[in-house]
């Protein structure tokens, strides 16, 4: 196939290339100006709703949040202002940075633990189950979302409390009671409740599309099963696995329910710090500072994760 053949294949809805002077346009291809117009309309039709959505529901509120972080509160009433005190006061407090590091650590742990727990399940569903069984497994993964997350977390209290079901069962074999509720362990159980089904699904949709011939080739070359998983399957599904872990991190980083109702709010995460800040003195501007730091952190981590996911092999 020549270079001109390849350029001919690229004609159509693909954005128009700059043509070299004197280069012949393939037969039937639209004139450059016309092509640009068609592509522009086509692109606009499909990208405008998303663009508008992002402008209205992300960019505009984000800009408002930035402005809000400089407002003042007088007599429980917010007033537009340019007051940098909110930033210096919040960022100057050790309690903020302790909560920040704690939240970061908890979310990173949740992303690693959830991914590790989810992978064997998603691998088994993708590689070991029949088509029908796989469909049922996907359906079962969706079912938890039928019930409110708050209700699921509340029901965990019955299992995890000192006098709860798990400790009662352990007592029958002479163990416990183990303190599980109002601890980091409780928070982690809540995070798994929130993320595990979603992470399994995301991992699964990535593993399903791993080229089976690569696995067969590895086996033919006498690569062991475990080594095949880690050196063939995982790298091939890297994008999906990374995005699944990233979703887990994002969801848990801002979660308020599990740290409060299973972690006992002790010690507080950033989301609890936000509610504490708004509850007393209506300090929404200071809460906005915390929220903006959280958004900035998530943006950095999301960019890093996506970059890692799409990194070319060997680089």
């Amino acid at each position, binding site marked *: 196939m020549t270079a001109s053949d390849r350029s001919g294949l690229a004609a159509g809805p693909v954005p128009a290339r700059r043509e070299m002077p004197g280069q012949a346009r393939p037969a039937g291809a639209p004139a450059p100006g016309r092509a640009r117009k068609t592509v522009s309309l086509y692109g606009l039709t499909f990208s405008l709703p998303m663009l508008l959505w992002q402008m209205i529901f992300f960019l505009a509120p984000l800009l408002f949040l930035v402005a809000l972080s400089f407002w003042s509160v007088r007599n429980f009433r917010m007033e537009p202002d340019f007051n940098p005190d909110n930033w210096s006061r919040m960022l100057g407090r050790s309690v903020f940075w302790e909560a920040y590091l704690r939240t970061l650590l908890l979310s990173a742990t949740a992303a690693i633990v959830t991914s590790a727990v989810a992978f064997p399940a998603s691998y088994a569903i993708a590689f070991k189950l029949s088509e029908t069984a796989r469909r049922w497994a996907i359906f079962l993964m969706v079912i938890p979302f039928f019930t409110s997350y708050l209700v699921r977390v509340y029901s965990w209290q019955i299992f995890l*409390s000192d006098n709860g079901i798990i400790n009662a069962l352990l007592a029958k074999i002479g163990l416990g009671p183990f303190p599980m509720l109002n601890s980091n362990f409780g928070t982690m159980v809540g995070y798994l409740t929130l993320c595990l089904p979603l992470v399994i699904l995301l991992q699964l949709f990535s593993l399903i599309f791993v080229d089976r011939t690569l696995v067969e080739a590895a086996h033919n070359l006498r690569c062991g099963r475990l080594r095949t998983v880690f050196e063939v399957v995982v790298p091939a599904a890297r994008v999906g696995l990374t995005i699944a872990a990233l979703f887990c991190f994002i969801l848990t980083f801002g979660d308020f329910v599990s740290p409060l109702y299973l972690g006992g709010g*002790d010690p507080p995460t950033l989301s609890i710090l936000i509610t504490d*800040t708004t*509850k*007393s003195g209506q300090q929404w501007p200071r809460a906005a500072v915390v929220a903006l730091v959280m958004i900035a952190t998530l943006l950095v981590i999301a960019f890093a994760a996506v970059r890692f996911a799409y990194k070319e092999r060997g680089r």
Partner: protein
Amino acid sequence: MSDLSSSSGTRRHFLKGATALAGGVLATPFLNRRAFAQPVELTMLAWYGHAEPDVVAAFEAEHNVKFKPKYYTGGDNMLGLIAQSPPGTFDVILSDAEYVQQLNAAGYIEELDPADYPFGEYFPEFQQFPGHWQDGKLFSVLTRFGFLGVAYNTDAITEKEASTYNVYWSEKLTGKVGHFDWHLPNLGQISLLQGNASPYDIDEDAWEAVQEKMMTLRPQIGGFFDYGGTFSSLQSGQMLAMAGIGDWITGTLERNGAKVRSVIPEEGGLQWTESFSIGKGSAKADLAKKWIQYITSAQGQVKSATMAAYPALIPNKAGWELLSKEDPAEAKRQGMLLDDPSNAVEMIRQGRIKYRQLPFQQSLEDWNDFWSDYKGA
């Protein structure tokens, strides 16, 4: 002929009847409109429970009113909601007493006429409640109150053990003491333990001492709970003692069979107080006034004392008398029997109870910042 006249008479009667029926049918919408007029909507800003059917149903039926509640958690939240709403949004406002002055200073509530309310039936202590009057003018009417002390699990701790705030430091309660997540009652209790006669009016040295003492409690703490979390952790026995609350939570649990109680310790207890005001710019101020008259009457006070969401003491002496007739067990449980020498009002008269207030010598921000530091420690 007779047949004809009979027939004619029948026709006349028929026409008469038909006319009357048609008139009746045509008038029905007007009759219906009077008999089944749309209820008037009355907006109420309050803690949860105040506009629930067990409290408001009788008033709603009598005055053809439908309450539209907006519930809040905490005085700051209440002030924020009012500040962010147009004037006249809330017809009736229930607030904790310490916030009435701020409501008044911000111009959020209407002046009231004392003659409209049954202050003559109130115990003298509650007739001129601090903060509710400004330059001889009334702005809010006290409707209920309660005491905050040591809330404890009766299986784990005896009443004698719970009769001091020092029980929070007991070894057998390590990791089993919870906090109701609000700095005012918790810090107020530690201030009382430190021997401050006015727990919220303390100088810098005393404030430092309160903070130091509070920090020593941190290893004992098993969690910080909101309203729902406080209920569930006490009910399940996950927490065996709870700081910052009183009978308003344990009373509800106790009525439902949980083994929890509250006691006023020897260092003294705190009093929370709730009062009704009429929102500035309310278009239904007359109806709002009728509601406050109802809920502060003996009949309304009984409803308030036995509110399903959380019980409370009532300031109306006639209310105490009616409660002891209608629900003597609850009157006894809450300490509202007039012939009981250790009843709730006697405790106040003995000086064992201090009002929960905003800090006098420090800013609310200072107290809140310390609370955040304490939680994160």
